């Protein structure tokens, strides 16, 4: 069977989550690879969540927030940006490809952008292959 990546998506309830809803309403087509988790703000996504997703075998993690200036809490997404920049360097230092963590600004009106991001991210992850932790597990099980 061909590899279908498993993406954990943290979506801000004010924008990206609404954008995902709109993608559904618009009947946009995108691969069924993402499991969305609604969060109050992308600034609520602690690095622990991303690390935990990778540790439990997610192939990619998407963090979706509002465009700069649009944050419902004024500056939550600026904090997200700082944090995710550092985190993507951190996971690279831990031996993961930093492309496995993707930060996107998707507003509630951008259903098509949501579909496009998921399609692109899925293709990128197929090229990268499964989470290296899963390979190790398979080796141990063999």
């Amino acid at each position, binding site marked *: 069977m061909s590899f279908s990546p498993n993406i954990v998506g943290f979506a801000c309830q004010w924008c990206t989550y609404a954008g995902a809803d709109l993608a559904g309403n618009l009947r946009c087509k995108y691969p069924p690879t993402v499991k969305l988790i609604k969060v109050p703000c992308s600034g609520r996504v602690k690095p622990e969540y991303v690390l935990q997703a990778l540790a439990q075998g997610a192939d990619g993690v998407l963090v979706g927030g509002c465009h700069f200036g649009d944050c419902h809490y004024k500056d939550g997404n600026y904090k997200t940006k700082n944090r995710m920049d*550092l*985190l993507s360097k951190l996971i690279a*230092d*831990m031996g993961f490809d930093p492309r496995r963590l993707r930060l996107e600004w998707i507003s509630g009106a951008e259903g098509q952008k949501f579909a496009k991001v998921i399609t692109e991210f899925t293709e990128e992850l197929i090229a990268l292959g499964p989470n290296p*932790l899963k390979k*190790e597990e398979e080796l141990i099980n063999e």
Partner: protein
Amino acid sequence: MSEKLKVGFLLLGGCAGCEMAVVDLSEKLVDALAHLEVVFWAPTVADVKYHDLEAMDDGYIDVAFIDGMIRLDEHIHMAKVMRKKAKTLIAFGVCAALGGTAGMGSLHTKEELFSKAFKNTTTTDNPDNVYPSPHCLVDGKYDLTLPAYEDKVRTLNQIVDVDYYIGGCPPHHSHVEVAIGALVTKQLPPKGSWITNGKAVCDVCKRNPTRNGNGGRIMVDKVLRMVDGIPDDNVCLLQQGYLCFGPITQGDCGGSCLNVNIPCRGCGGPIPGNEDYGAQALTSIASILGSEDATASLMEKYPNLAKFFYRYALPSGTLPRKM
């Protein structure tokens, strides 16, 4: 007190600095020995061997302190033996509790570490590339053994149940005194907790800006390392742009490093309610970066963020080693 408390100390993959912290109690240790009987202290202080511990009855030791992380199969074996012999087991110091600085070894392969330690250092002369190996046959008849090297560093609680944790590299002797006092008087927190005053380093730090009315949100535009200048003695290091982990670290040390102008790197262990020290450190530091330039300068000045944020805590992290 009718009977003395039987205590044991066991050093695993550590430097014995934690045991020095016990010795640093000096005359207070002499007072404490009126209530304590040291029945095992190896391999550092007492002339006892591992098989002496193995020969003890189960539960013979009232309180056992283990310092150092777990890297060798011998460490795993001895930790399990000590767990059986001790009624109460304490992970003493940050290595046993979170992995310690040696935990950063998990970011390298065994090959990298061995070639650095036994081959490539300038003071090493090893033309035949002799590396330690678990078995070695000498003269065809002496079968010599060394402990085998595990694939990663582990914390004590990844091997056995731990009753209490004490942070610090090493624990400050004043805190060791408090901890031993708590043990002798049996005023201990619930099992599985840290023995701590429960305050962050900032709480005990004399530079805390709220003490002199300069509190409020900290935002820096540039990040500095200690080589970039000498920080002002009385101003919060974070306000000056020197990255300090005081806000998220237990302050049982009394802010020792801050008193001598050195930023906190988190040896005290995480303040309660936090399970992944490095991730919390990242969150805390990211929240003071006021611009993208500040983020960029941090990443430029600290080439390996895993070693920066997880200086003392990598093996206890969500991702305990390099993939």
